[in-house]
Every structure is written in C-alpha cells, then in structure tokens.
C-alpha cells in the first residue's frame, strides 16, 4: 500500500496535481507517552517527474503538517505518466506513478 495518493488532471494543457502523503512529520519537539522527545522525522524532498524530465522539486522542513498535502501545476499532456516520489530524513522513501487524466 503506497503512502502516496495522487491525482493528476489535465485541462487546457495545464496538469493539476493533488497529492496526499502519509507521514508523521514529527517536529522533534513533541514527547511520547514516556515523556521522551520524539526525534524529528519528516519528508525532506518531494520530486515530480514526467519521463526523465523533472517538473517540480519540493524541499520540506518539520513545519509541513502531518500527512502532507501538496498541489502544483505544470504544462503537460493527458495520458503521460507522472512519477511522484518522497524521501525523508531517516532514509525512508516511497514513490508512485499516476497516469495524467
């Protein structure tokens, strides 16, 4: 089960991407039940590519909300495949491909 849900819709040559990612986005200032600090754990880079072409790169810190939402737009075509990928500061990663509709 992917951590990423993504929709990419083309209209008048502009593709609108809406993505939801499942991630705790821990700030490093919260405490667990035992009162110990929970270390920062956050998505740091999100990339969006069509084929070999990068269309958007986002760099995120701990102040992006838990289970991040990300919307962006680019000039693109229906039927092309968008690849959305994230990495986090603890070495985690995930990616998903979506056909532009």
């Amino acid at each position, binding site marked *: 089960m992917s951590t990423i849900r993504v929709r990419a819709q083309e209209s008048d040559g502009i593709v609108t991407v809406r993505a939801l990612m499942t991630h705790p986005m821990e*700030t490093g*200032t919260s405490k667990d039940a035992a009162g110990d600090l929970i270390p920062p754990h956050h998505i740091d*880079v999100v990339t969006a590519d069509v084929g070999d072409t*990068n*269309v958007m*790169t986002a760099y995120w*810190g701990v102040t992006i*909300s*838990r289970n991040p939402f990300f919307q962006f737009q680019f000039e693109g075509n229906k039927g092309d495949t968008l690849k959305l990928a994230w990495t986090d500061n603890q070495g985690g990663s995930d990616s998903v491909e979506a056909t532009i509709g």
Partner: protein
Amino acid sequence: MTSNKRRVFLKGTLAAGTVGVAVGAGLLAPSKLLAAWPEDAFKARGFEDTLQAALGTTDMPEGDIEISAPEIAENGMVVPVTVETGMSDVSEMALFVVENGSPLTSKYVLGAGAVPMFATRIKMGQSSDVVAAVKSGDTWYSATREVKVTIGGCGG
C-alpha cells in the same frame, strides 16, 4: 552581513565541491543532485538569518504574489496555504512563517513547464506573518499575509 554572506558562499562552494567529487567518483547518480536538502536554511533561527540562508538575501521587493490562507486558523497544526504569482521567469519559490522557531517551511524548485504556484498545509506555533518569496529572473520578490492562530501547532 558581508561576512555572513561570505560564510554562506564559502559553505556552498565547499558543499558543491564535495558533491562534485562524489559524482565524479560515481558515488551519486546525477538525479540525486536534485535531492540536496538545504539544511542550513531549515535549521536557521530568526527570520532574517533564515532568509539569508535560504535565499542568499534579505532584501526583497514586493512582488505580484498572492497568498491564500485563512485569516484566523483555529488549529495551528494544519494551516492551508496557497501561493500563486503572475510574474514570469520564475525558477524558485519559498514559504516562511516569521514567528516559527524554524521559519522556513518549504522551498520549491520549478522544473520544466511548471506553473508558479503551490499549495500545502503548514504548522504555525502562533499568530504570525506568513511570507512567500518568488525568484523571478535573478531577483527574489515577496508578499506577506498575517494569519492569526487560536491554538498553536508546534510540538508541546
């Protein structure tokens, strides 16, 4: 300020040199170069220092930039923000919360054909000015919008 700029510049040069060596040695695929998280900018404290670390300048003229965000956010853990601009030749965008301990929330590098807009949800520790920065040509422009927060959202 001059010495600070110089420090940042030198740091950048050293970092680039290290990465360059790694690429040359085949340790890094070129695509990995995109994934250089700007640690200094995210770890900077205070708005001015953060601007300097994130953008290399603190001097930003007002730009044709629209920030959509609630006037009053009841929950600082989840504040929806959309940034759009009518400016041309945009290569990068960034979003700051002036009063957050770590003011830089996110930075965006636009790729091929990207429309200069983004929307996300951010955490705000308290009521604050939210500042969007947009790099058009070689110049960073900015816009500011105040968001009042009822319940702060940074840890605790």
